[in-house]
């Protein structure tokens, strides 16, 4: 039962503070502390951890443990950045009284996650300001897909498209603009309802979960080795980050660690993923203010990265590279050379693209003070990743919870407080330069040795949290293992699920024609959210 020494004071203080109302379940993997408490303590525990230890509530989910323990479990995952550790509160919910208290009024960041639990597990939310359906659309029958007695292959009646009742916005000259789910561009589906008076947006309502694919349920219906490939399909733009977060969770559950070379190669791939997505986003943001030339250069640069991805891993989106216990393909001398060559050529090319964008004052006019996400709002909503860092939310798992090879590299985390489109672009720009530097450092220190450890068997009944700072923000995978190398539960926390509520806040008061650029400056994943 080892624990990071820095977490010990927290453990002592918390157990003392709550006495016998809080039970210490176990400590795993140095930085994961599990507690158990009754539902009554949820709010008190949350408030205390936040005020005393600046802990962030990063993930809330449920688990149907009725077969094994006769109850549902709720899990509240707190990240204590300063201590590099996680405090996880487990709360039993009896099946004969399936309800749980809402934290949303105090912690707006958990709004969608709580409603997902209500939809997927049939646990009733008590005290939620808007306890309507979220993850299952209105016309879905009364099913709770993540309950163990619900069969994955259940056939449901066809979708009728029953109209969702949106919040009404009334007044002189107020009109509604519905958009989606099929959008004009080549992007994912979601529905946006604008309420506007004249040009400025008064209110924006989101309707997501159009691409819900039953992913979490699928995880429970596959051998663990196949789940790695499924994790690659949670969100295509984060294929490697999600697969690595999943592998990380399984490795922690099994109590093994990927060898140093594997962690180094993972770091290289994670940063390549960041670079190709960031450069594409910068181009796309420029497109949305009609500066297409910049986008053409950005797409060309992205293509260069994608081709190197293919050279080193066999797939342009880095698919097939991740595996339990490490990575599947080693980087031979020629591959290392290819990566080095890419970095050498990419950097000046990208620098001059940055100059082209900077030089265009018209572009800057459109970016600055557009789509402002205020730091206070970002903090209330727990906005993570690029979007959070552009609004003063200074968090990065690479620095705060060093995984992979990040503890061996030096880098800075760009943080701004303005929170506009410009700053979100600048965060990406700076992160690209940092990524190039990180990859170079890793290549210089590239350890020799194995690229994976055998991980064929995972014992049942283990739980673990895997985490990775993907390009859009922090990704968490929490797993509970079952017999026969299978999973009893896999919860996926994509940063986009956390971040979508930022968009309606940032668009307030902006004009509808600026919506595309504001939306693109966030570029949240629909598939990662809906999964």
């Amino acid at each position, binding site marked *: 039962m080892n624990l990071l020494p820095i977490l010990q004071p927290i453990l002592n203080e918390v157990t003392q503070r709550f006495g016998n109302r809080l039970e210490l379940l176990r400590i795993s993997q140095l930085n994961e502390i599990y507690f158990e408490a009754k539902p009554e303590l949820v709010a008190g525990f949350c408030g205390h951890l936040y005020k005393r230890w600046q802990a962030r509530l990063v993930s809330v989910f449920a688990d149907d443990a009725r077969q094994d323990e006769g109850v549902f479990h709720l899990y509240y995952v707190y990240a204590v950045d300063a201590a590099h550790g996680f405090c996880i509160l487990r709360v039993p919910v009896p099946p004969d009284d399936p309800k749980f208290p809402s934290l949303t009024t105090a912690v707006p960041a958990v709004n969608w996650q709580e409603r997902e639990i209500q939809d997927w597990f049939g646990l009733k939310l008590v005290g939620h300001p808007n306890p309507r359906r979220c993850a299952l659309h209105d016309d879905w029958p009364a099913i709770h897909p993540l309950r163990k007695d619900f069969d994955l292959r259940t056939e449901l009646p066809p979708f009728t498209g029953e109209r969702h009742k949106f919040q009404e916005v009334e007044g002189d000259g107020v009109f509604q603009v519905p958009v989606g789910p099929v959008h004009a561009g080549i992007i*994912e589906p979601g529905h946006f309802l604008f309420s506007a008076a004249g040009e400025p947006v008064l209110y924006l309502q989101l309707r997501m979960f159009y691409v819900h694919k039953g992913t979490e*349920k699928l995880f429970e219906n596959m051998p663990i080795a196949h789940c790695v*490939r499924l994790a690659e399909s949670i969100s295509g733009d984060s294929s490697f980050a999600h697969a690595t977060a999943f592998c990380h969770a399984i490795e922690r559950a099994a109590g093994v660690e990927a060898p140093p070379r594997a962690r180094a190669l993972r770091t290289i791939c994670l940063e390549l993923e960041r670079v190709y997505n960031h450069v594409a986003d910068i181009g796309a943001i420029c497109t949305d203010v009609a500066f297409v030339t910049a986008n053409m250069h950005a797409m060309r640069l992205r293509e260069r990265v994608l081709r190197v991805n293919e050279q080193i891993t066999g797939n342009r989106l880095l698919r097939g590279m991740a595996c339990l216990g490490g990575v599947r393909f080693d980087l031979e001398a020629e591959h290392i050379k290819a990566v080095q060559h890419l970095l050498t050529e990419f950097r000046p090319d990208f620098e001059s693209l940055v100059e082209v964008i900077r030089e265009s004052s018209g572009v800057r006019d459109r970016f600055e003070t557009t789509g402002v996400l205020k730091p206070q709002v970002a903090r209330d909503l727990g906005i993570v990743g690029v979007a959070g860092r552009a609004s003063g939310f200074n968090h990065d798992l690479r620095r705060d919870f060093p995984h992979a090879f990040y503890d061996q590299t030096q880098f800075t985390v760009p943080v701004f407080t303005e929170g506009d489109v410009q700053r979100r672009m600048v965060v990406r720009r700076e992160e690209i330069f940092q990524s190039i530097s990180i990859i170079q450092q890793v290549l210089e220190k590239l350890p020799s040795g194995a690229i994976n450890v055998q991980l064929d068997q995972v014992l049942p009944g283990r739980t673990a949290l895997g985490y990775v700072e993907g390009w859009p923000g922090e990704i968490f995978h929490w797993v509970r293992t079952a017999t026969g190398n299978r999973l009893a539960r896999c919860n996926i926390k994509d940063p986009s699920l956390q971040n979508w509520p930022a968009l309606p806040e940032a668009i307030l008061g902006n004009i509808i024609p600026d919506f595309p650029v504001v939306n693109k400056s966030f570029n949240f994943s629909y598939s990662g959210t809906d999964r």
Partner: protein
Amino acid sequence: MFEVLRKSLQTGVVTTSYPAGPPQVATRARGRPEIDWANWKDARPGAAVCPTGAISYEDSDGQRTARLDLGKCIFCGLCADVDKAIRMTNICECATRRRGDLVTGAQYSLKQDGMHDRLLSVPPAPLEALGQELHKRVSEILGRSLHIREVDAGSCNGCEIEIVGLTSPVYDLERFGIHFVASPRHADMLLVTGPVTRNMELALRKTYDAMPAPRLVVAVGACGCSGGIFGQNYATRGGIDSVLPVDVYIPGCPPNPHALLHGILIAIGRLPTKQQPGR
């Protein structure tokens, strides 16, 4: 302004010569898996590690029918890791007009220990014929203008990344007179990705209904062809052809821009010959 011009001039032409030249893929790239059908000894290891069921087999009466379904394959190469008779090629041009053409199979007599014994029937020749046909038609295609509407019907956005890549200067779809359009009313072709989620089925049908005839539907990616790794479950319907009539299937996870281009060009070659009532 000068910077913009200078950068463009400095960059020069970056557009691929494909389809006149070969696709530019890395040697390590994983494309279509190839099975040495004559010397394949056992379908079971490959089938066991395949996450999507692309490799499958059925045993009956001392015979085994083994199949490889490219429409389900995500080109992960795990089968090739465990079975020497399977090799990952870097061939990415796999698009076909019929779903059945993506499936190859062979029959074997079965041994006591579960291994194959003797090859009883040879699988049909792979997709070479289509490639030739494509080359024959490329010239006539070049003169034609095509408008595409893309619909994500549940994709993980991996396919979208590659489809967007088609509009980059490297692949430059517009050199074929092919454009992506914002409205289905302007479109000749529907390019659809994803395992058709329950929530997107209606939107997909409506988009299709809004298109003027004649219209083409191209299913993109393992999910679009067959449901892929998601298959059919409470939230997904499976491949695009479970909802719409599909003209061309483009396998891959995701198919790279060469493969997409290949599939789209195949689909256009078909346009003048197909005259079905009501389409």
